[in-house]
């Protein structure tokens, strides 16, 4: 309503413009819900499975063990250099399947929208989900949409995706297969996604050219599978970064691991941002990086295979040295000094000075 109207004493509780913003009505299960799905989701993501319009998708039996995973995405801001929440929701789940030694095939897409979210925002995220699914070669076969009460201009959205992949590695890579002497191969420079998001946070006023490394790992993992080299374990370096991934794997099998700091690639811009805020790039999130634990005899060749597929610098960054200390990770630096690597308690907090 505008002030020119003669009566402004009451505001209709029903949606005022269902074309420009998400309203609670879009989650009501009625006409608006159907409109949202039929005009803004299905035309983008439609495929024979989704088009069954049933409560669930009936999928073909692949004849091989399936990998199944789920993840939720709550990133703010919704858009960042190199991607958005939609890109993350597709690639994050796709990459978890890849790490299980599977080729991702099908995703579910569950959207929780906040009342007040701009329809145009919603649409551009759906567009990037469409594009990401295409690039990762997966189909979105079932989904759900809910609307929750919003916070006006700060209205956002949350996404949950579950994914099914067909395992190709036999036996599948697993933390239990890590062995003494394994080399750790990293597929690119680290710390981009976390610093990119940090720089966009409210009040940060920090300009940088850093783009998220957000990317699907399907092609890289497929190339590893086709190479038939001995890959014992893979882990993507998301929350908690490289150090969390390596520390968790070291602990789960009780293996001591040594990392070589000079071999771990970090972009100068990422290093500067981390220095400025007192963060450790080793503990900053990534969305397109993983480490492979490779049988020492195949280490060099695996690096070559990855180097052909991976966009970043592929490096051998460490080695499983034995079981003596029951799962300790040590980082050796260029000075001959070393320190232990550990999980951070909660989130890293920027320092005072």
């Amino acid at each position, binding site marked *: 309503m505008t002030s020119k109207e003669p009566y402004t004493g009451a505001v209709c509780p029903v949606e005022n413009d269902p074309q420009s913003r998400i309203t609670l009505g879009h989650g009501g299960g009625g006409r608006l819900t159907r409109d949202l799905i039929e005009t803004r989701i299905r035309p983008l993501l439609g495929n024979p499975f989704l088009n069954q319009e049933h409560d669930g998708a009936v999928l073909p039996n692949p004849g091989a063990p399936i990998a199944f995973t789920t993840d939720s995405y709550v990133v703010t801001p919704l858009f960042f250099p190199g991607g958005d929440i939609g890109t993350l929701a597709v690639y994050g789940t796709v990459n978890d399947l890849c790490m299980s030694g599977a080729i991702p095939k099908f995703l579910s897409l569950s959207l929780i929208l906040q009342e007040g979210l701009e329809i145009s925002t919603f649409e551009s995220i759906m567009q990037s989900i469409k594009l990401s699914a295409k690039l990762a070669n997966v189909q979105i076969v079932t989904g759900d949409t809910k609307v929750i009460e919003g916070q006006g201009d700060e209205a956002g959205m949350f996404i949950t995706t579950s994914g099914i992949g067909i395992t190709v590695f036999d036996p599948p890579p697993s933390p239990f297969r890590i062995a003494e002497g394994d080399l750790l191969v990293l597929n690119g420079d680290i710390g981009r996604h976390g610093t990119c998001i940090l720089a966009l946070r409210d*009040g*940060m*006023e920090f300009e940088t050219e850093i783009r998220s490394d957000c990317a699907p790992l399907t092609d890289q993992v497929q190339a590893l599978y086709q190479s038939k080299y001995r890959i014992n374990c893979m882990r993507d370096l998301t929350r908690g970064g490289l150090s969390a991934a390596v520390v968790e794997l070291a602990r789960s099998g009780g293996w001591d691991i040594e990392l070589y700091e*000079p071999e771990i690639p970090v972009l*100068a811009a990422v*290093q*500067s941002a981390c*220095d400025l*805020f*007192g963060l450790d790039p080793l503990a900053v999130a990534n969305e397109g990086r993983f480490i492979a634990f490779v049988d020492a005899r195949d280490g060099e060749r695996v690096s070559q295979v990855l180097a052909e597929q991976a966009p970043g610098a592929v490096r051998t960054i460490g080695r499983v040295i034995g079981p003596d200390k029951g799962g300790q990770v040590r980082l050796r*630096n*260029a*000075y*001959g*000094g*070393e*320190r*232990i690597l*550990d999980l951070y*308690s*909660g989130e890293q*907090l*920027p*320092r*005072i*000075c």
Partner: protein
Amino acid sequence: MTYQNAFRDPETVQRLLQSLDDVTTRKWSVMEICGGQTHVFLKYGLDRLLPKSISLLHGPGCPVCVTGVEWIDAAVALANRSDITLLSFGDMLRVPGSETDLLSAKSAGASVNMVYSPMDALTWAEAHPAKQAVFFAVGFETTAPAVAWTIEQAEKRNAQNFSVLCAHVRVPPAIQLLLSHPDHRIDGFLAAGHVCTIMGCKEYEIIASRFQLPIVVTGFEPLDLLYGLYRCVVRLEEKNFGVENAYSRVARDPGNSHAQQKLTQIFEIVNRNWRGLGTIPQSGLAIRERYRHFDAKWRFADSLSPRPEQSEICPSGRILQGLLRPDQCPYFGVSCTPENPLGAPMVSSEGACAAYFRYRRKK
């Protein structure tokens, strides 16, 4: 060339370590005052590459560690008021007060926001006129000028809903306290380069001449630290006491006169309680009466009841004076961890206990 390869160059590090070895003829104990410097030493394992006869003592220069419990209690009390949002540096959020910390208070419903600079807090205040914004100002002469400038800006902009809980502290009185302790083992100091960038070297010359020791103004990169230490040892070996600036690419002898002027304009020097160390004369900065409408302690005096100082089992006072190394503390890594800290040095990103726990860990 960037600062990253210029001041972290492995070959130059090796050369400096060799030079340090060449000049050292006896045992020396050198204290780095700043907790940030402690972390760099441990993060890169540099302390273990030094000649055996050189010991590092870790000093009290961790703003989070020395902020008195009463300030954290006050911050929590303010954050719990429905009309107040408390804005704080992230580092302060997990530090235990006498009953709780700010992060726990936040999960229990208190309004606490993390900011990266005091100006962000003022900007937040202007964007939220219905709320009272209180900025929790902690730290040494490094962070204090920005707070002073923000208070001046708040005055110019006539900000009605902005105030500062001011717990700032000054370094030189703490150094004097350390040197007055009969058991101190300090032969020389590495002074914090960023503090001297603001305050200059003059305050330190008085200390160096009174206590007859070298004080070397030192930066924060691995090469800065090793060079500062090298110059300190050279001076010790030559009995050449006084202040030397080994961080001249940033710090100037007179300091930053503009920042100093702002400090004097907004703050007055007061006695202040340091956590674990007790009251140190002339060691605090309080907001002058002329600007007291921006002083949260004055504005919300009715919400702040002075609590009697409670004794803590954490021996942080001895840690902060270099009398006890973190891994010598009976609680370290046993009943005191970053998840369940007994004292502030285990939580702060500049705390010595946190450095030992994160990079070194024993027990």
